[in-house]
């Protein structure tokens, strides 16, 4: 979509009104599709991508109020701006439209200048909103973006059981010292793309990226059946992907990347933390600390993946686990059982 052209859906039971509005928006340079009642409109909205809805109120089958209600309750459709175009009588009906989430109201017969201004402003709003959503997705995932939308950006926490995974490239600082800044960022981008894919394909989300390290959550914000198993599988996939990346790097005579993983399972407090302008979905608690300590411990333990007792208990096939000598981690009162893979 260019700045000024949009895909509009015109919903009106009256043929003259449909023709008139289609012509009106087409003269403004937009594309127009038409639906003759709310039911058909909802089907079209679910099947295609529209930037703006021009909605009549009085319609058979499903009227404009019902359409507004249905849009509001549909996470995929609720962001489409709606301009109510109606000659419905009574201010209370117009108020009701606005309360149900309509962005604007234009009385019929529709004034051309008013239509132009309102359509333009709504399309601009939609464009900004889409841009925001794209940004949100770049830093979070579809699930978190959805959760954010559903909870309406509530910055609050809840206690849940989840698996936390930390991973980090060994000695990345010294590797990057011999690389150009461009090559360093390119390598990080490749690495992150592979890691994101491995995490999300196992139902996890990447909640934090710092330099060459990342933190992923399994079981939050959406619960998953076996978060420990998913986290371990994701770690394995990430190892495989790193191995593939290393094969390519070997051909280019570039140094091998070594990655370590720490996984812990247990109670965490998860939620959006930050300010109104900038918040991130994250979690805190002993489980998070433990996962970070386990990841650090891979440097000395000789296993690329280390995990705690609770993660081990969740595994469907614990045969491949090797217990290593219990470790006294900083911040934990007693020695903990640790497993490697």
């Amino acid at each position, binding site marked *: 979509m260019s700045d000024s052209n949009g895909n509009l859906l015109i919903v009106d039971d009256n043929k003259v009104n449909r023709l008139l509005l289609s012509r009106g928006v087409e003269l403004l340079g937009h594309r127009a599709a038409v639906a003759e009642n709310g039911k058909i409109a909802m089907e079209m909205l679910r099947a295609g991508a529209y930037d703006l809805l021009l909605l009549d109120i009085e319609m058979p089958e499903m009227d404009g109020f019902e359409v507004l209600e249905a849009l509001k309750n549909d996470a995929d459709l609720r962001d489409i701006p709606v301009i109510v175009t109606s000659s419905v009588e009574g201010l209370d009906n117009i108020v009701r439209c606005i309360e149900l989430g309509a962005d604007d109201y234009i009385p019929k*017969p529709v004034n*051309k200048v008013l239509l132009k201004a309102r359509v333009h402003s709504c399309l601009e709003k939609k464009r900004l909103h889409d841009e925001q959503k794209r940004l949100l997705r770049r830093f979070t995932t579809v699930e978190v973006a959805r959760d954010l939308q559903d909870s309406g950006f509530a910055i609050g926490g809840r206690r849940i059981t989840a698996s936390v995974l930390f991973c980090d490239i060994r000695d990345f600082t010294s590797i990057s010292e011999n690389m150009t800044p461009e090559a360093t960022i390119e390598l990080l981008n490749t690495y992150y793309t592979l890691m994101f894919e491995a995490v999300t394909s196992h139902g996890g989300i990447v909640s934090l990226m710092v330099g060459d390290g990342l933190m992923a959550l399994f079981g939050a914000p959406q619960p998953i059946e076996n978060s420990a198993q998913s986290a371990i599988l994701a770690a394995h996939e990430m190892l495989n992907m790193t191995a593939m990346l290393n094969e390519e790097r070997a051909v280019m005579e570039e140094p091998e990347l070594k990655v370590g993983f720490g996984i812990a399972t247990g109670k965490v407090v998860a939620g959006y933390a930050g300010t109104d302008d900038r918040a991130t979905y994250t979690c805190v608690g002993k489980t998070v600390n433990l996962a970070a300590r386990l990841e650090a411990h891979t440097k000395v333990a000789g296993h690329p993946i280390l995990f705690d007792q609770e993660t081990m208990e969740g595994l469907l096939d614990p045969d491949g686990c090797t217990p290593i000598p219990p470790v006294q981690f900083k911040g934990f009162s007693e020695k903990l059982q640790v497993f490697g893979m």
Partner: protein
Amino acid sequence: MTEPIIDPSVCAELSDAMGSDFAAELIETFLNDAPNMIADLKKAAAEGDADGYRRAAHSIKSNADTFGAVQLAAMARSMELGGLPDADAPIPALEATYAASAEALKGLMDE
């Protein structure tokens, strides 16, 4: 009657804004569609369907406004707001006004 049946400036404006061919096509669409709307109105009145009656009157009002058929719009509006009538007295009056409006609109198209 002191009030004209059609305000010709409305159609002139429509023609200016949308093109005269399109305006003519739109009037023709209305003239084809209006008998259906009047039939809906009669059917709703006969069946005591208040929603259908209001909706049909609303559609007629909306289209009449589009073409400057001021008398027709006023009658349809009062029917929309008035709800189901005790007798079907308003409908024949509306039909007569529609017939006169249609003639006037046809006249405008021929100009």
